[in-house]
């Protein structure tokens, strides 16, 4: 009698557990979609605030739509999943971070990627920015110097269906000579200076964007433009709305 009771309890427990998993998964899907929507709203609000600096009131709708589609939670470590869609940078191990979604959107917008553009990314990191660029329709080439990060990101991108992305583990200083020139280059790894080979691999009319600062805080975005004649200019963009003098607008 007692045995039968115990069995029932065990069966009931597992059934309950199964239900829990089902419910939580379903809730998870809903939660993530809802979280992404909220994240996009947060980005839009940041963009409005900084419109003065980035010279536009809103980002390219294609960028915003991509930000709403790419599953960021798949690119963060499991310990950070609950914060995957918060508008903040997160640690991903190996002393690296996944950038703040607002910065990812802003950088993607700055290089204005068109479908079929060739984009080179130095510093794959988690692979999230790579996925955003791929989702924009670009042909993405991404190099990561830290071995374990490179292999993990490559696997993750493959599993998420970004088959056209080409990744490589190694030194990004010399770019990807065989595939050059590029329409856009994104240097998401900290750079002591802008490597001359990367400038050479930029198409006339192409742009390069570099975030400058620490792992958790972007101080400024540097946008390098090569005009049709090959002349270079840079623009320095503060990612926040701030003027240094009182009373100045």
């Amino acid at each position: 009698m007692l045995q039968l009771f115990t069995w029932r309890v065990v069966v009931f427990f597992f059934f309950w557990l199964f239900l829990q998993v089902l419910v939580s998964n379903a809730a998870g899907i809903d939660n993530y979609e809802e979280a992404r929507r909220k994240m996009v709203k947060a980005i839009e609000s940041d963009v409005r605030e900084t419109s003065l600096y980035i010279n536009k009131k809103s980002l390219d709708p294609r960028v915003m739509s991509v930000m709403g589609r790419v599953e960021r939670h798949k690119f963060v470590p499991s310990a950070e999943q609950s914060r995957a869609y918060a508008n903040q940078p997160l640690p991903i191990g190996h002393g690296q971070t996944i950038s703040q979604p607002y910065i990812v959107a802003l950088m993607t917008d700055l290089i204005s990627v068109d479908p079929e553009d060739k984009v080179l990314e130095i510093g794959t990191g988690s692979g999230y920015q790579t996925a955003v660029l791929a989702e924009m329709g670009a042909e993405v080439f991404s190099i990561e110097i830290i071995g374990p990060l490179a292999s993990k990101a490559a696997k993750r991108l493959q599993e998420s269906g970004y088959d056209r992305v080409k990744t490589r583990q190694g030194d990004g200083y010399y770019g990807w000579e065989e595939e050059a020139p590029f329409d856009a280059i994104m240097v998401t790894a900290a750079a002591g200076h802008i490597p001359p080979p990367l400038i050479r691999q930029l198409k006339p009319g192409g742009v390069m964007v570099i975030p400058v600062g620490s792992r958790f805080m972007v101080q400024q975005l540097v946008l390098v433009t090569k005009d049709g004649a090959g002349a270079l200019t840079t623009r320095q963009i503060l990612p926040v709305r701030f003027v240094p003098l009182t009373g100045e607008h």
Partner: protein
Amino acid sequence: MDKKAANNQQDLAPPRLTILLVSAMALSYEILLMRLFSIVQYHHFAYMVISLSLLGYGASGTFLVFFRQRFLHRFSLTLIANILLFGIAVIACYLGGQHLLFNPDEMFWDNRQWLKLFALYLFLALPFFFAANCIALTFSKYRLKIAAIYAADLFGAGLGSIFVIGLLFVVFPGKLLLLLGSMIFVIGVVAWLELRLQPTWPTFCFIGAAVVLFLLPAAWTNLAISPYKGLSQQLRIKGSTIVEEQSSPLAWLAVVKSDLVPLRYAPGLSLSAESEPPAQIGIFMDGDSMNVITRFADDISELAYLDKLTTALPYHLLQPQDVLIFGAGAGSDILQALYFNAGSIDAVELNPQVVKLVRERPQFSGNLFDRENVHVHIGEARSFVSGSSKKFDLVQLPMLESFSGSAAGLYSLNENYLYTVEALQEYIKHLNPAGYLSMSRWVKLPPRDTLKLFATAAEALKNLGIQHPEAHLVMIRSWQSASLLVKKSPLSLEEIGLVKEFCHERFFDLVYYPGMQQQEANRFNIMRRPYFYDGALKLLGNDSARFMERYKFNIKPSTDDKPYFANFFKWQTLPEILNLKGQGGMVLLESGYLILVLTLFQATAASLVLILLPVTVKPHAPDQEAIWSRSRIVVYFFAIGLGFLFLEIAFIQKFILYLGHPLYAAAVVLAVFLVFAGMGSQFGQAKRIGVIWPVIIILGLGMGDLIFANLLFSVLNWFPGFIKVLIAILMLGPLAFCMGMPFPLALTDVGAAAPDLIPWAWAVNGCASVVAAVLATLLAIHFGFTAVVLTALVLYGLAAATFPAGKKLRGGRSVTG
């Protein structure tokens, strides 16, 4: 305690050697913690964490208010238990603390970091708590010998400061942690023998434990360096290894070779650069800011990249015969001077170990520091200039800090005598008539240090009697770095032409030259507005004061009395930046200053709790007759706690330039203060001196020393080192001697009137010391070090006024009962 017991106690000698050693170890640990946290974290957080952990002293006093009687019954065993706990905590609490993996960078994003920070405080306060228990218990037990115990405490701290600074030259910080832990166990043996406890076999156990502690496996005791620091990042790259380490109280140096991926360190390199730097070896200081030794082969064309930096500008304007470089580091700027065929190069470097590391690699560095025309001097740059009569064609101040540190405002607490108005005047005086002073900084947005430096240069030129400073200045910038040139004579049109050409070829922007038009600004590295040009122009105009007032960062020139060049913080900007938090606006926060304020706030709040807790929980029957009322104790002991530290800190600063090295200044001044104060403490008791006399002398000597210290640097800087130290002893010794008296005189008196309040007075004094260290820096930032000294003197005056009337001539003896 009855009279008989008190008499017995009077006959016994307090364990002075034990107290001396415990105090020496506590101070050693404090300095060691600063080193350890500078390595695993960042210096400014080390400062905050350690300041607050010293509240362990205050906590000890509060704790003993409740448990004093219980512990005094078993004094010997309690003392020894506290020593042993101190020894264990020294090691365990640091190791536990570093494994909390607190990351200050995430504080604005992740609230869990605040909890970790709080836990870190608690961990690190424990060792100081146990050490302070030893001293406070001994005060309570031998309350008629307080002066002798206090003297031992001060002597110990003085010796500890010299001891640990010496040891840090030969032992790595990680190993020193174990060494301190085991030495503290040996102090347990000393205490056992000093207290004549029987049997003696436990002493062997202590020695055994000391050996075990020292031999703890390395895997347990490795330093957990933040993964976000430069060295950790570099070591992630395949083929990067540390090939040599050096350590001193100044920094831990790690020499890194990267075989597969070259380091390619060339910050500020022009976009027009065609080539990359040759092979380099990195030297990381405290796991961050990298310096490089660049391979100097016979083929000089390998160094062509040195012509593509903003720092190359002066070499295009003149062919210098005599060059002076501040911060030789691993030699990048010497290399640049050699590349441009400079005649003779003098370079000053603070850290002798950096120089040694370069010298040990003559083949790689091309014997850089030992070439015929290169002269490397070890010391503080300002002292070197002021002590030299040589004139130079070019004085170079390269970018000395790491970019990330500089950008985050982490250096704002560091006193910096290189960029003050007086400093720039001194450099300009040492230029030949057509010579240049060249200073380079990282570009921060919105502009901060570059504009502050520009304002400082303009003011220095004015102070030197130059009518038109605007004719002597040139500033250029890349997207990453900016260089400011100050010429002793006005710039010629030809030179201006060369500047324009230099910038045009390298995609650098002109920020300012005499006669520049707005359309020439902001051409290659484009900002929304030509902020740098606008700022420079405003700073030269009649309205410069108003411009600095309206600017959202503090860009007013710093002076020797307020040497905080890197403090750009303004309170009025704070609300705006906090509003931008979500967008990552925290990058605009000059966090160094705020950390200081936050530290003061936390220290004050914690002190209030520690001081008020005994009052609220254990209300003392109000005694109208009591000579030492609680409020009197608070005012008196807080005032002398603040006063002592204020004078100590201010005079360390005043002596940095004179003694020529911040480390020697700290060691000499600390040792003089503590040892002489110890002697004063003894003397005061022996002579039954009244508190009013030492205070009067403190006021007189304090004023005298202040005036004299300001003259020292300008008048007596030519003396050899040992005479300078002797002058420091002669000046500060008598002052410190008197400063050693007020504490024991009053505590003895408190002990006679209300022995229960001894630990409480100790708690008040402990809390005051913590608040004092932070408050002194804050006062110095706003009002200067002169104001810190004056405030200290007022505080001593206040203490004297608080001392009970009629007691002043009896000092060292109990008068009640």
